[in-house]
């Protein structure tokens, strides 16, 4: 007897991101997370929002060298996820409200989950 609601995913272009996010904000949606998946040669970035347990997901598919606009001007708390995108994946996010410039996650290795990083799957070395 589940009341779990459907999840919808919409693919959008980076240029449409802010407009779509502003529309969700105006519609009363709460930000749940921003997550990244490294595919073969692109990143799939999921912006996830919730309203009354209904989950809406905006999906960007971008090459590693593409810059992404920050949504922290719309959702202030997005800075944690956007700094994570940068620090773990090496993705450039422009105009983050609190930009740690690579020091939010103090990992021993820079951009440990980047699809373009050298070193493959060698174990992380603490230095």
């Amino acid at each position, binding site marked *: *007897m*589940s*009341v*779990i*609601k459907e*999840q919808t995913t919409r693919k959008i272009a980076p240029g449409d991101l802010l407009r779509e996010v502003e529309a969700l904000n105006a519609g009363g949606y*709460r*930000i*749940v*997370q921003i*997550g*990244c*998946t*490294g*595919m073969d040669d692109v990143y799939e970035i*999921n912006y*996830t929002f919730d309203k009354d*347990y209904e*989950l809406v*997901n905006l999906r960007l598919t971008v090459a590693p060298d593409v810059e992404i606009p920050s949504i922290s001007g719309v*959702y*202030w*708390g*997005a*800075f*944690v*996820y956007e700094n*994570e995108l940068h*620090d*773990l994946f090496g993705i450039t996010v422009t105009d983050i409200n*609190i930009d*740690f410039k690579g*020091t*939010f*996650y*103090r*990992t021993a290795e820079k951009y*440990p*989950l980047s699809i373009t990083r050298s070193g493959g799957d060698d174990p*992380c070395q603490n230095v």
Partner: protein
Amino acid sequence: MPERIVVPFGPQHPVLPEPIHIDLVLEDELVVDAVPSIGYIHRGLEQLVQKREYPEYVYVAERICGICSFMHALCYCQGIEHIMGTEVPDRSRYLRTIWSEYSRLHSHLLWLGLFADGMGFENLFMRSWQLRERVLDVSEDTTGGRIIQSTCKVGGVRRDIGQEMLDKMHRDLDIFEEECRDLGNVFLNDETVKYRLKGLGVISKEEAYALGSAGPTLRGSGVASDQRETGYAAYGELGYKAVVETAGDCYARCAVRVRELYSSIDIIRRAIEGMPEGPIDVKVRGTPDGEYFSRVEQPRGEVVHYLLGNGTKHLARARIRTPTLANVPALVKMLPGAQLADVPIVVLSIDPCISCTER
């Protein structure tokens, strides 16, 4: 205007069992800004999903955090089961619910003890942890493990609980509830505690929602959001209504957790009474091909496991958003206006779990 100074809080601090760093910008002893940083112990467990077969990853998922270990496993398993279209037996859903609520009791009592310790109320700290031991005893008796239980699996659960044990658990809940209410009475009504917590670290309903907060941090500000209301596991049959406080301060967040002790006991009691007969697992065949955002209400709030299967025995991606990460922006908003001496209390009030955050 007083001179501004920056005082580092953490990564090692007596109230923090795990490392997080916050630069506190102070004017005299008043906090005017706070800048957090994490990642000291980031483990990259999400990447292991590409190296472990999907049934094995349950063991990794439950090691993301020692406190909500069972619920990480549950969230992961529910996600895989959704992708594969697997219906688990009713009895396993009830058992999952019981172990989830014992995990919540264990977590909240742990937090209440740490919170009391942070306030310097040592007797209350010891009493909270004394009660927590009783919860861990039940975990050990029913799963064999106090913390890492390894009972959840894709397709159901590994262990059953016999009727004799269920009856004993049900009987013990009566005295346990009475003791929890005595404990809660101190947290909610003691003048010292109220003086220390009321009006401290306030975050409004609108702010908590807009910042994407989760769990007691969100509900303590008046937002009735609790994934258990969606009816996963056996919550649909048992019914659940979110515990909400409206003041948005440290006292309100504490009150939510105290009242959730009582609601957890109530759910366990009703789950035992309504426990269906039947098998506890189903055979799962094939490999996951598809994606799903699985959500479960952990003690600190909603956890999200994004799972992407590609039709092989290894998933292509697991991305885990833990509630502490979602509550960091709220913490940044709570701290300005607090005195330096109150910072540990405000930080503790979101119940930070760095182990989860550094998955």
